[in-house]
C-alpha cells in the first residue's frame, strides 16, 4: 500500500485515543492560534473557500460558499452545529476520528466558530456513539483549561461555549433541519427550505451545520494554506484528503485517510486488499447507502464529487461498500430500500408511501413472485419520487434504485423469468 499523507489520522494508533498533550505535540491548536492572532474571520472564510473544501457529510457542498451565506457580522445570537449523526449505512469515519483524536474536531469547531463569529456551538452526536461523546467532553474540558475555549479565548475578547447534544436514534436526524428541531426538542421532521438555516436556524437564528470531518479539516487548511490543501488531492479539481470507510466484501474493511481523486481500483484492490476469498468484484456503493452503484466499468474513475456525478453516482461520505460476484443486486437494493422506508419520518407522501411500495415490489421480485410490469412500476415510482419529496431522504433512497434499474435491469428480468432469485 502507498504511503498516503496523513492529516486527520496522523495521531491514529490502534486502540489509543490521543488527548491534549499528544495533540499539541503534533501541531494541535496552531491553526487556531494563527487564525486568532494573525488573521481576520473574513480571511479564514476566504482561505477555506479557496481551499476547495467540500462538505464531508455526503452532500459535497462547498464549505466556503456555505459560510459566505452566513451573516457573520450580524449582531445577536448565531449558532454553529456540528453534525455527528453519522447514520448512513456504510459510514463510520467520523467515529474513527473521535476515537483516535477528538481534539481534531474541537479545534475545528472553535476555529470555525471564530470564523463565523458565533459564541455558541452544538455537537450533535448519535445515540450509539457514547464513548465518542465522552471523548469529546473530555477534550472540551481540556481545551477550556488550556484557554482555547471559554471566555476571552487567546486574549481575543471572543468567547465560545460548546454543547454536546446526545440523540436517541433515527436516521432522519442527520438531515440538517431535522437536526435543528432535534436540538430544540421539537419533533424532528425536516423543515421547509427556504428559509435556509443560515437565515433562520436554531431558535430562528442564523445557523450553519457542518460535518465532523469538514470542521476537522479547517485548522489544517489554516496552518498549511489553501494551495497545500488543494494539492493533497490526486485529481486537478479535487481538494484535500478524505476518510474512506471500507466495508462489505473487501479483505481489509477498515477506515483509511486517502487523497481525494484516488481511483476506485486503488481503493478496492490496493487499500482494501481486493475481494474476500479471491472472488471477483461486482459492484460497490461508493459513498454510503444513498449513492448509485459503481461496477467494474467504473474502476478507473477518480473518487471525487464531480467525477462520480459525471458517471451517474455520488461521492457521498466515501463509505465504500463492495459486493462480490455472488451477490444479488436486487437483494442489496431491497435491503437498502427497507432501511430508507423504515427510517422515513412519514411527513411527506412520496417518501412515506412510495418507499414502502418500492419495498413491496422488490420483495415480490426477489421472492420470485414478480412480473415484468412490476419492473416498469419501479421505474414509475423512481420518476414519481425523484425531486418530489420534502427532504433528501427519499431522494437518497432513489440512488440505489436508480443504480439497479440502470446497471442491473437484466438481473431484475432474470428474477422474473426464472421465478426465483438466480443467486440462491
Amino acid at each position, binding site marked *: 500500500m502507498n504511503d498516503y499523507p496523513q492529516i486527520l489520522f496522523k495521531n491514529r494508533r490502534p486502540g489509543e485515543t490521543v488527548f491534549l498533550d499528544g495533540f499539541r505535540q503534533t501541531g494541535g491548536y496552531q491553526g487556531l492560534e494563527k487564525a486568532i492572532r494573525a488573521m481576520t474571520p473574513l480571511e479564514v472564510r476566504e482561505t477555506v473557500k479557496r481551499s476547495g473544501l467540500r462538505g464531508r457529510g455526503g452532500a459535497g457542498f462547498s464549505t466556503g460558499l456555505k459560510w459566505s451565506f452566513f451573516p457573520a457580522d450580524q449582531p445577536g445570537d448565531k449558532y454553529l452545529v456540528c453534525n455527528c449523526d453519522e447514520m448512513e449505512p456504510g*459510514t463510520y469515519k467520523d467515529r474513527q476520528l473521535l476515537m483516535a483524536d477528538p481534539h481534531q474536531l474541537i479545534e475545528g469547531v472553535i476555529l470555525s466558530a471564530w470564523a463565523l463569529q458565533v459564541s455558541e456551538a452544538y455537537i450533535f452526536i448519535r445515540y450509539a456513539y457514547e464513548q465518542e461523546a465522552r471523548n469529546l467532553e473530555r477534550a472540551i474540558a481540556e481545551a477550556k483549561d488550556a484557554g482555547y475555549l471559554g471566555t476571552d479565548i487567546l486574549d481575543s475578547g471572543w468567547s465560545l461555549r460548546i454543547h454536546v447534544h446526545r440523540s436517541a436514534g433515527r*436516521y432522519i436526524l442527520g438531515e440538517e433541519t431535522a437536526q435543528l428541531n432535534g436540538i430544540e426538542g421539537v419533533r424532528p421532521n425536516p423543515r421547509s427550505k427556504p428559509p435556509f438555516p443560515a437565515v433562520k436556524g436554531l431558535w430562528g437564528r442564523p445557523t450553519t451545520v457542518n460535518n465532523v470531518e469538514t470542521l476537522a479539516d479547517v485548522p489544517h487548511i489554516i496552518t498549511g494554506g489553501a494551495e497545500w490543501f488543494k494539492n493533497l488531492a490526486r485529481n486537478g479539481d479535487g481538494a484535500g484528503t478524505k476518510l474512506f470507510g471500507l466495508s462489505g466484501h473487501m479483505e481489509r474493511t477498515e477506515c483509511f485517510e486517502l487523497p481525494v481523486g484516488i481511483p476506485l481500483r486503488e481503493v478496492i484492490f490496493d487499500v482494501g486488499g481486493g475481494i474476500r476469498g479471491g472472488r471477483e468484484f461486482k459492484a460497490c456503493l461508493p459513498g454510503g447507502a444513498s449513492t448509485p452503484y459503481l461496477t467494474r466499468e467504473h474502476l478507473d474513475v477518480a473518487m471525487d464529487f464531480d467525477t462520480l456525478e459525471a458517471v451517474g453516482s455520488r461521492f457521498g461520505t466515501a463509505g465504500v461498500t463492495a459486493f462480490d460476484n455472488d451477490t444479488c443486486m436486487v437483494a442489496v437494493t431491497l435491503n437498502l430500500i427497507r432501511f430508507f422506508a423504515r427510517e422515513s419520518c412519514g411527513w411527506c407522501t412520496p417518501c412515506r408511501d412510495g418507499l414502502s411500495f418500492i419495498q413491496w415490489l422488490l420483495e415480490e421480485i426477489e421472492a420470485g413472485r414478480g412480473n415484468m410490469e412490476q419492473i416498469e412500476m419501479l421505474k414509475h415510482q423512481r420518476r414519481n419520487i425523484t425531486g418530489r419529496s420534502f427532504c433528501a431522504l427519499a431522494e437518497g433512497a432513489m440512488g440505489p434504485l436508480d443504480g439497479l434499474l440502470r446497471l442491473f435491469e437484466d438481473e431484475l428480468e432474470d428474477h422474473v423469468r426464472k421465478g426465483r432469485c438466480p443467486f440462491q
Partner: protein
Amino acid sequence: MNELLPQPEHDHFRAKAAASEHPRELIIDLLRAIQEHHGWVPDEGVELTAEILGLSPLQVEEIATFYDKIFRRPVGRKVIHYCDSICCWATGGEQVAAHLQQKLGIGPGETTADGAFTLLPSCCLGACGDAPAMMIELKLYGRLTPEKIDAALEKEKD
C-alpha cells in the same frame, strides 16, 4: 427500577430548566435519564418530563414516540440492537439475527421470559468495518460469529 428519577437528578434537571433560555432542549436528556433509571419511559415519565420543562404531555409524547431508542413500553434489563443494514447484511447479518432469535427463544421486538433481554433490529450502528455487529445497551460487539454471540450473551446476562 421503580423509581422514575432519583432526587439529585430531579433537582439537577429542574435547576437546569430554570436557568435555560430554552428548557425544551433538555427533553431528550431528561427522557434518557428516566429510561436509564426506570428501564423505559412510562406515562408518568412523560408527565414528569412535561412538568419539569413546562410542556404539555402531548409535546413530550410526540418526541418520545419519534426516537427509536426511547422505549414507551417495558423492555428487558438489557436491550440488544442487532444491525440489519447493508454492510452487516452482506457479511452474515441474517445469520446473526437467526442465531440470536434461536438462542434467546424470542423474535424481534420480544423480551425473554426471564426479563433479561429484549431483541430489536436496528439500522446501521456505525461499525461497518467490523460487520456483522450488534450493541447490547451501549456496548458494541463486532465481527460476530455464533461463538462470539454466545459469549456476549453469557457476559451480559445478569
